[in-house]
C-alpha cells in the first residue's frame, strides 16, 4: 500500500495543481507532527501554530535577509521551533488535560503578539517574496516540479521519523503514558521527560512543515501563528482520525481541498469548519481513517483522548476476528 501511495504522490503534480498538493503535504506533515502528541501521548496542544508560524518566519527571514540556502533556512526554522517547543513544553507539561490545552493556547497567543510587534516579522504584511533559492547550490527550486519533489522528499522523511518513533520502544512508552500515566511512572519511567521529548519532536516537525510552507508560498504571515491555525491542525487530525498513522494526512488533504473549493465563500469557510468540528466530536470521533481501519482490522489503537474502553465498540472487535485468526 505504501508503494501505491508513494507512486501516486510521484505522479500527482501531473494530474493535480502542484501548489495545491504541496500545500496539502505541508499541512499533512504539520498534522502528523501534531498527531504524535494527541494520538500517542494523549496531550491536546492548542498552540501548535506557534511552532509552525515561528519556523515559517525564521526560514523566510534567514533565506531572504541573511541569504542562507533553502536547506539551511529550513533547518534553522525547525531548530527554532524545537527550541520554542522545549520552553513551551517544559511549562505546559506541569498541568494535565484541559489545562494543558489552555496553557499551550495562551503561550501560542504570546508568540502571536510577539510576531505582531517584532520588527523582523513585518507586522501585518508578513515577510513576502521569499526567494526559494537553489537546493545544495544545484537544484533551482523556483521550478515548480523541483520544489514539489523537494517538498515530497521532506514530507516523506518527516513522516518516516514519526512512524519510526511511534513503533520504537520510545513510542511504546509514550503510549503507555497515554493509557495510564501513574502506572507508567510506577514502572520507573520518568513520564514528564518522555512527554517533553515527544513535545519537542512534535514542535520541531511542525516547524519543519512551517518552514517548507514559507518556501512554497514564498510568504510567512500572521495567519501562520494565529490560533485559527492551531484549530485547523486539530481539525485535520480529528477528521482524519486521532492516533492513526495515515489519518492526519487524509485529514490535511480533505481540509485543504475543501478550502480551495470554498475559497470564494469568505467567512463561510470558518462556519463549515465549525460544523465539521461539531459533527466529528458528536458522531465521527474515529475519523475517516479510523472508521475505514475498523472495517479491516480492529488492531488499531483507539483514539488517543477518548476513554479507550468505552470508545471501542464491540462490533470493531468482532469485525476483526476473522482477520486476526
Amino acid at each position: 500500500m505504501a508503494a501505491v501511495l508513494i507512486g501516486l504522490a510521484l505522479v500527482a503534480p501531473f494530474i493535480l495543481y502542484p501548489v495545491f498538493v504541496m500545500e496539502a503535504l505541508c499541512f499533512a506533515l504539520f498534522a502528523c507532527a501534531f498527531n504524535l502528541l494527541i494520538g500517542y501521548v494523549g496531550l491536546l496542544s492548542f498552540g501548535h501554530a506557534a511552532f509552525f508560524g515561528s519556523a515559517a518566519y525564521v526560514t523566510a527571514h534567514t533565506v531572504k535577509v541573511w541569504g542562507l540556502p533553502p536547506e539551511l533556512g529550513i533547518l534553522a526554522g525547525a531548530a527554532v521551533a524545537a527550541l520554542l517547543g522545549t520552553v513551551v513544553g517544559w511549562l505546559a507539561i506541569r498541568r494535565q488535560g484541559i489545562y494543558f490545552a489552555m496553557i499551550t493556547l495562551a503561550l501560542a497567543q504570546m508568540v502571536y503578539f510577539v510576531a505582531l510587534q517584532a520588527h523582523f516579522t513585518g507586522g501585518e504584511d508578513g515577510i513576502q517574496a521569499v526567494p526559494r533559492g537553489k537546493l545544495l547550490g544545484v537544484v533551482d527550486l523556483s521550478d515548480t516540479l523541483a520544489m514539489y519533489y523537494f517538498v515530497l522528499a521532506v514530507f516523506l522523511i518527516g513522516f518516516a521519523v514519526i512512524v519510526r518513533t511511534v513503533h520504537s520502544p520510545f513510542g511504546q512508552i509514550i503510549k503507555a503514558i497515554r493509557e495510564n500515566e501513574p502506572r507508567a511512572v510506577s514502572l520507573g519511567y520518568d513520564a514528564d521527560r518522555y512527554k517533553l521529548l515527544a513535545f519537542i519532536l512534535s514542535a520541531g516537525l511542525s516547524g519543519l512543515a512551517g518552514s517548507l510552507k514559507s518556501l512554497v508560498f514564498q510568504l510567512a504571515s500572521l495567519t501562520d501563528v494565529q490560533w485559527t491555525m492551531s484549530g485547523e491542525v486539530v481539525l485535520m487530525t480529528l477528521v482524519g482520525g486521532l492516533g492513526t498513522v495515515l489519518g492526519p494526512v487524509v485529514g490535511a488533504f480533505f481540509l485543504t481541498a475543501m478550502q480551495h473549493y470554498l475559497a470564494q465563500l469568505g467567512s463561510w469557510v470558518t462556519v463549515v469548519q465549525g460544523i465539521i468540528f461539531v459533527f466529528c466530536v458528536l458522531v465521527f470521533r474515529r475519523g475517516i481513517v479510523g472508521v475505514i481501519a475498523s472495517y479491516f482490522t480492529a488492531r488499531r489503537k483507539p483514539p488517543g483522548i477518548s476513554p479507550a474502553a468505552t470508545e471501542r465498540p464491540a462490533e470493531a472487535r468482532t469485525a476483526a476476528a476473522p482477520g486476526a485468526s
Partner: protein
Amino acid sequence: MTPPSFTAPANRAPPRNEPKMLDWILLTVPPAPAMFAQLLVGLINGAFYAMLSLGLAVIFGLLNIINFAHGAQYMLGAFCAWFLLNALGLGYWPALILAPIIVGAAGIAIERLLLRHIYGLDHLYGLLLTFGLALIIEGVFRQQFGSSGLPYAIPPELQGGRNLGFMFLPNYRAWVIVASIAVCLATWFTIERTRLGAYLRAATENPVLVQAFGINVPRMITLTYGAGVALAALAGVMAAPIYQVSPLMGSNIIITVFAVVVIGGMGSILGAIVSGFALGLVEGLTKVFYPEASSTVIFVVMALVLLIKPAGFFGRAR
C-alpha cells in the same frame, strides 16, 4: 488636564489593538493622570476578565467542560443589545436584562442538543465541540458584519463624567466597575451561601449521590450552563458601549481569559474574581511602564505562576 480621549469613550476599540492611541495618551498627558487612566482601563478590562472567568469556572465546575464558545457568547450578548436597539428600539437597560435571557436560552438549547451527548467522554472533546461552536457563531457574524466594529452609544443616564481631582472618571466606566463587582459578588453569594448553591457544589463533588437524594441533576446542569452563558452575555452588553460591537471581540478576549483561569485556577469562585481584577490591573500598569509588553504580560505572568505554583493561586491540583 483631563485626557480628552476619555470624554468620548463610546468609540474606543479595545486598548490592546490601539498602540497608537496609547502612545498618544502617554505623550500628551502628565504621568500621574496617565497612570490613573491606565489603571482605570485595567480595572475595566479586569472587570470583564473576572465576569468571563467566573462563568467559565461555574460551567467547568459542574459540566467539566471548558466552554470555548464563551467568547462567542460574550460577543452574542453585545450583538443582541445592538439588535434590540436597532431593530426594536429597546435601549441599554432593557437589553441588560433581555440579552442575557435570550443568549442564555440559546445556551440551554446548545446544552440540550449538543453538549449532553459528550458528558461520558474525555473532557477534551468538550473543548473541541465548543471550539467548533465558537467558529460557527463567529463565522456567521463575520460574514454578516465584516470585521469592523459597530458603535453602541452609552445610555443617556450614564453619559458624561466627574472630575475626581486626580483624574477624570467617566460615569459609564464607574458603573461598569460597580456593576461587575456586584454581579461577581451576587454569583459568589448564590454559589457559596444559598441552598441552591449548596446543591450545585454538592453536584460538582458527586453528581450521582446528589441525584440519589432526589435532586434533578441533569436539569441543574442545563440551568448552570444557561446561567454561565447568560453571565457572558451580560458582560457583552456591558462591554458594548466601551469596546465596539464586533464579531472578533470574543476571540480577542477569550484566550486572555484562559490565561487568567490558568493563573487563578478554577477551584474557587472568589479566586476567579480576584485574579480577573488583579490581572486587569497588572495589564494596565504594564501599559504605563512598558507599553510594548502590555499584550503579553498576562501570558508571562501565567508562565511564572506555572513555574512557582503549577496548580494556580486558588486551584486544586488536577
